[in-house]
């Protein structure tokens, strides 16, 4: 068996594959953050909470209404997006004139509220969400068993990310979004319904988080803390990639998933910190982030 630094190459491939799955979640979450940040200039601290909410919605749908996974995949993100609409219309809306920091603070408060609520209702120990039947089992890739569901997660995340990228960079709606990002008042004065666009953007961004949550539900525990655990890492990912570009968010997310996967093999002790260490290094050599645009 060929080995790299004492690790069989095949198990290394397996680890990379798993890294890619984690990377897909990072990518999808940082993409949502980037989209929201772009349009609203708000760093959505509640993103993790919405991700958790997505997972919970699908669990609740299954438990109370016997809605299956596929419908959840559609309904749960819609539900999350609806909450997003309410949040945007009743709260965030009042902050656009102010320093961006207030958006961060508000969403931080929201994250606490949402997390506290779910903790109170469903406890902290987590709820099980079974794999849908067609995803039971694994592909035998020869060197490893790739669980079917994980493969699906990679495919689903990547397609969603690509679609989002296409819409924003290549369509007319996208150019409204980008222009609105810079000077919403002016864009509105040109005849575009900016308030609606902003609401929908926020809804879309948190909907993405919700979707990630549904995808994560069968893999991880459906747990009120799952959001706050992941969100800080995603922030680091965003700093590394720079929020300047959609593609940057996706690529960085995937790459960091891979790197984290490798660390787990070669030096597992550091796997919790590796992302932050990379962030520090990137800050030293490219303060604006790998894909960031300097203002």
């Amino acid at each position, binding site marked *: 068996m060929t080995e790299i630094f004492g690790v069989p190459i095949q198990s290394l491939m397996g680890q990379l594959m798993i890294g890619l799955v984690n990377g897909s979640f990072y990518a999808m979450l940082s993409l949502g953050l980037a989209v929201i940040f772009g349009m609203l200039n708000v760093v959505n601290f509640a993103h993790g909470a919405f991700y958790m909410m997505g997972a919970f919605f699908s669990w609740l749908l299954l438990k109370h209404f016997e809605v299956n996974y596929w419908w959840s995949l559609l309904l749960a993100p819609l539900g999350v997006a609806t909450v997003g609409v309410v949040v945007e219309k009743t709260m965030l809306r009042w902050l656009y004139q102010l320093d961006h920091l207030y958006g961060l603070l508000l969403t931080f408060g929201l994250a606490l509220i949402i997390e506290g609520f779910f903790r109170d209702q469903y406890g*902290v120990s*987590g709820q099980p969400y079974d794999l849908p039947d067609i995803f039971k089992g694994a592909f035998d890739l020869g060197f490893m068993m790739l*669980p079917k*569901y994980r493969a699906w997660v990679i495919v689903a995340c990547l397609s969603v990310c690509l679609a989002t990228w296409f819409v924003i960079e290549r369509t007319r709606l996208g150019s409204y979004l980008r222009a609105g990002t810079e000077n919403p008042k002016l864009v509105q004065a040109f005849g575009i319904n900016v308030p609606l666009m902003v609401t929908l953007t926020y809804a879309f961004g948190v909907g993405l988080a919700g979707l990630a949550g549904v995808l994560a539900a069968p*893999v991880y525990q459906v747990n009120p803390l799952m959001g706050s655990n992941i969100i800080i890492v995603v922030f680091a990912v965003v700093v590394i990639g720079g929020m300047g570009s959609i593609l940057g968010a996706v690529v960085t997310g995937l790459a960091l998933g891979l790197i984290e996967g490798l660390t787990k093999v070669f030096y597992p*002790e550091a796997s919790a910190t590796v992302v932050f260490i990379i962030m520090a290094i990137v800050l030293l050599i490219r303060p604006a982030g790998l894909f960031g645009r300097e203002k």
Partner: protein
Amino acid sequence: QAPAPGKASDDVVKIGVLTDMSGVYADYGGPGAVTAAKMAIEDFGGKMFGKTIEIVSADHQNKADVAKNVTQQWFDRDKVDATFENLNSAVAIAVQGLGKEKNKITVVTGAASSKLTNEECSPNSGIHYLMDTIALGNVVGKAIVKDGGDTWFFLTADYAFGHSLEKDTGDVVKAAGGKVLGAVRHPLSTSDFSSFLLQAQSSKAKIVGLANAGLDTVNSIKAASEFGITKNQNLAALLMLITDVHSVGLNTAQGLYLTEGWYWDMNPETRAWAKRYEERMKKKPNSNHAAVYSSVMHYLNAVKAAGTDDTAAVLKKMKETPINDMFAKGGKIREDGRMVHDMYLFQVKTPAESKAPWDYYKLKGTVKGDDAFQSLAMSRCAALKK
């Protein structure tokens, strides 16, 4: 000035139940623990020396400083005589330390750190009532190796607790003639265990020992089942609670080995108490709830027997009297504060075997208290050496 016999120092006996009401361990302790304590007081008769026994409870939010703050106020201002439960090892150590300083009895049930009767011991005020990490390792290690599981690979949470759990269990396995093939250390609160499990898988060990706790254990078990690891290897959770099994679901957890100090479905006595508890809480009790009940009852009996709530006198009585109730048979509180009682190895039932909600375990073995817990001779408790 010793208080007159038959009279509490300040007229009333007042106990505190400090627990995690809302956090990770709220199901393990939480409101259920308070209920258990209240049941004990009611069963005792509700009165001591003619005065109603009082109970206060608080949420420590799993923060040691909150716990310390609350307990300090209890001792300083609210005239609380003894505190119970004190789940989570940071809290337990903090509270026990305070008890030592203020000379008040502190009974720990929920926390499993063996430091409580070693480095941080307090023989004159602290009691560790339920299980500790050494016992956990002992039971799982010995029983499984005996059962044929002689090659081990550990999945260890990378902090002091995980390390000591891994080491203690490893030693037991080796002593019993088994082999430890390796270990991988994962960071605390990892959400994805798959890559660590792949490493466990390639080790080809028969048993994968999970030297972690709480959500980490739950997540490792889920990932193990997803990656088909449980087909060729068996998992042994070194610290797993029935609430964790409940949240993983039998489908995933089936076949898993674990250690407990108590289970509701062991004998008529446990079932009867569990039924009474369930009537109030609409849930089955776990070992911690039973331990809280038992320890409160034992404390009250000791106060009555001593005729005072004076710490030294009560503690002396508590240590003299053996514990015989639905929680433990022939249990005894040792000099170092360790309550020694029998421990059990369980295996999680398959969904087919499970007949009712919370019908989760089959008993695989019983380990006598003296074999399960660390011997007094091995103790690193400095206060005992003097």
